[in-house]
């Protein structure tokens, strides 16, 4: 059970696929339009329950509980050889330019 007062993430389905009327590509039209908001859980609950949360600025939102202690996982990515190569090449090019200039 997830305790009242935990920082959680909820999902609200704002528009079901059939309710989406805007001019949209097919792949977007067939999925719902949803939003996520984080806040303090207002009652003990389980993942998947319809719950109410209190957001950072004190607003109440209701939706499906989908995550407990949500955090950001983005980072600097995996190694990309090209970026290392470019960096080294550029420094070498500048070094050569400076050498030529010093020689006059």
């Amino acid at each position, binding site marked *: 059970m997830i305790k009242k007062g935990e920082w959680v993430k909820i999902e609200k389905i704002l528009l079901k696929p059939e309710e989406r*009327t*805007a001019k949209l590509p097919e792949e977007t039209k067939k999925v719902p339009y949803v939003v996520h908001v984080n806040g303090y859980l207002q009652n003990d609950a389980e993942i998947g329950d319809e719950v109410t949360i209190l957001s950072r600025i004190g607003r109440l939102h209701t939706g499906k509980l989908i995550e407990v202690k949500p955090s950001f996982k*983005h980072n*600097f990515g995996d190694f990309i050889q090209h970026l290392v190569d470019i960096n080294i090449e550029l420094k070498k*090019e500048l070094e050569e330019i400076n050498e030529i200039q010093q020689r006059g």
Partner: protein
Amino acid sequence: MDKSYNAVMSRKNEIMKKALGIDYDKYKISEISFDYEMMMDDVGYSINEIADIQKQSKVGNTPLYYLSNITKLVRKYAAKGKGAKIYLKDEAANASGSFKARRASLSVYEALKKGYKGVIAATSGNYGAAVASQAAMRGLKCIIIQEVFDSKYIGQPEIVEKSRICDAMGAEVIMSSVGPELFYSLLSALEDTGYFNASLYTPYSIAGIETLGWEIVNQIRKLEGRDPDYIVVTHAGGGNITGTARGALKYKLEFKPLNNTEFIACSVDLTGLHMASDIDFNKKSFTTGHTGFGVPFAQWPDRADTPRNAARPLRYMDKYLTVTQGEVFYATEMLAALEGIERGPAGNTSLAGAINLAMNLDQDAIVVVQETEYTGAGKHPQAQLSFAQNNGIEILRGKPEDSINGKNIILPRNLSDFQYKEIDLQKLKISYLENLVANFPKVKMLEEDFEFLSNDINEDPKWIKEQIFNILIKMKEK
């Protein structure tokens, strides 16, 4: 109250009026025309007053650097006597890490002055961080609505970082899936809270950027004793070029122009990727500063979330260049490797354009790159390229002009591979007029409309009349 999509959308006008505190009817000249300068004048602050307001909130007076090493490298590849001096305005030094702090500063100040308890902005860009940052300083509550993830809940690292920073400043972040219905979320939140709509497209937002253009001309004069020949501006919704040009022109008017300055818009070319596609959403390595916003907003500015858009790019744009994703990543790496400053890739769009532009200009010409943005997890070439790779996009070295968006990203082998494309401004202007005809199909055009249009797209009224005539003939033929 009925909060369904149709019900909320039908209350759009009244919600907006309450949330902006601006009566746009006041500026109406006809169905088509409005008094743009009167609307901008009603902001009510001089450039110096705006600079003071910005100073209070940790915005403005950013450094301008001469990029001596990049200029050296450009001259290596340029023809003899060519290779203009490149300067960089380091807008990452603003409170929220981008020039967007200028736009937010005046909006949030105004919201406080008018007695609003909070501000809301719908944006997936750096503007969210800017509004959240200014709201934090001014003690206002803040809601940021962002398009963050696709239907598999995966978010582009750059956008995820933008959610994080809004969170860090204490905003309530409403993170949405892909779709233009973001606007519905915005209206709904404005209605629920009664907060101020800190839209990117209000007169306050544009007036806030004018200090940037003003500072650039002032700084270049002190360093070079003349005006910049070119100011290259990363272009998306049109506010950046509008505000920067207005500020630069105001400075030149106040202290007499020394020489001509051209305003060059520059976007990352994302041709082939649909902006509202759940699939294409995570195939973009750039979430702003790209043609997906830049072209439609130039062709029709009044698609914004305000009754009239204060960002009117065709008034000020002298040229419109596009560069590839690969060139911008390469330029970003150059800035770090040769100039020792690491900045976020999207903000370096205009740097990639300027490097290419400078190669064809005389050595005594001055090119100013007008912004940078902060970097960090997600907002970084390595984060972007490895995310792209994981989405099946191939990362190659070669000629960026051969790249296909959504399939590969081609990083240049050296500066000789840089090749910007130029978007034909006349074609953009014709598209603007086609949109005009489509938006006002039954309206008879008046003489004052042609005067308005002449200013709005910077063309001769006679040319405009001819084009509209041609558009109407084509429509009849269909």
